[in-house]
């Protein structure tokens, strides 16, 4: 009987009963304001994380000389793809996806085609990363991470040192040999570099003892058959262990 009368009750009555009995309680205004602030903070935080990761990615690739190796042709491009820290790319991609989800909550985003918000985010990331790189934040953090250690991000900088990139080797020419030269890296490790007719050498580079160079090629038991060689921007001195070196940006007709 009771159930029958319940079924007969209109939706209006049922809803009002819930309100009157206190089963349905109106959330206060501040709840929604707080939620809005949290989402906005989330957007800002995730954007900053993406900017940090992308600029860090460009920084380590530039520092290691990897950024310029596609100039060595198809082989260089292959080495470039193999050298990219894909884990970082994946993490950046995940944050990018998360940011898109957060941004789509706003009417300015969902009212426009998806491609607009994606392009907007890409634009912000490109410009923002450029700004971060210009400020030299990574340069400072990297040096501090090596010298005194930096909490949280220190291992990140130590994990992506230039010598971690297996296909790119930086150092100073120690001695010219019949087949090429001996390369001394900043840790004092010696590599035998084989220069063949296929090796692409930057035109401004003269292979002389003491010259700081970047060599692209696979290392097998301290022997590297060079795919490409170019001058490092910073002078490299294993004794002083300056530590940081990078390749010169590509020039016109730099390949022979």
């Amino acid at each position, binding site marked *: 009987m009771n159930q029958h009368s319940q079924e007969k009750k209109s939706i209006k009555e049922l809803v009002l009963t819930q309100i009157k009995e206190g089963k*349905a309680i109106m959330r206060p205004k501040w709840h929604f304001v707080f939620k809005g602030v949290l989402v906005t903070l989330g957007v800002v935080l995730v954007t900053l994380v993406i900017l940090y990761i992308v600029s860090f990615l460009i920084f380590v690739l530039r520092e290691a000389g990897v950024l310029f190796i596609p100039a060595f042709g198809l082989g260089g491009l292959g080495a470039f793809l193999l050298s990219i820290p894909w884990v970082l790319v994946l993490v950046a991609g995940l944050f990018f996806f998360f940011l898109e989800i957060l941004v789509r909550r706003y009417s300015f985003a969902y009212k426009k085609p998806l491609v607009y918000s994606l392009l907007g985010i890409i634009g912000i990331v490109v410009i923002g990363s450029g700004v971060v790189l210009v400020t030299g934040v990574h340069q400072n953090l990297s040096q501090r991470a090596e010298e005194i250690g930096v909490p949280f991000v220190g291992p990140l900088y130590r994990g992506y040192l230039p010598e971690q990139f297996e296909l790119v080797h930086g150092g100073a020419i120690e001695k010219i040999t019949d087949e090429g030269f001996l390369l001394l890296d900043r840790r004092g490790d010696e590599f035998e570099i084989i220069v063949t007719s296929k090796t692409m050498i930057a035109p401004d580079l003269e292979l002389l003892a003491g010259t700081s160079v970047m060599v692209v090629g696979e290392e097998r038991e301290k022997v590297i058959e060079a795919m490409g060689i170019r001058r490092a921007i910073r002078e490299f001195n294993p004794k002083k262990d300056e530590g940081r070196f990078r390749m010169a940006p590509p020039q016109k007709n730099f390949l022979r």
Partner: protein
Amino acid sequence: MHVPSDEEIVRRVQKGEKESFSVLVERYENKITRYGRKFLSGGADIQDLTQEIFVKAYVNIQSVDTSKKFSSWLYRVAHNEFVNALKKKKREPFLFFDVDELFSHPVSPETADRKAYQNELEHVLKHCLEALHPKYKEPLILYYFEELSYQEISEVLHIPVATVGVRLGRGRALLKEKCSSLHS
């Protein structure tokens, strides 16, 4: 006699006049029930779902921006509830990113095509809607049965206005296709 708008009533409820909420329930009870019945094509308990929608609307009424249409907001609440019910029913994941939403599309004038298709489609819709994917079914229901504008559907479904046009167009084509196959 002055009939208060939905937004005026919402403002009253927000200020503490709980009883005024019953006016909103009265105004939208049938519309929301009809929307749910058509969208979910039976199976779920529409009465319970409609009740739940109004309870959620009451609980979250402080988040309503009264400078915008309340009906769009309420339909959005209903959409979320129905989509959740559909997910439970079919265990079919809803894609977050949709190809239709990816690029910009030209928007066709809505008044002309509404009149042209309305009579023909209302009849067809009743029989063939069930066979349609929710992605296409929902804009058709909101446009032809609930008589919402492109802009309002965009607000309810959180998709660009141009995408509403695309889905309606594809929905109509699919509907005719499904219907002819059902009849044959």
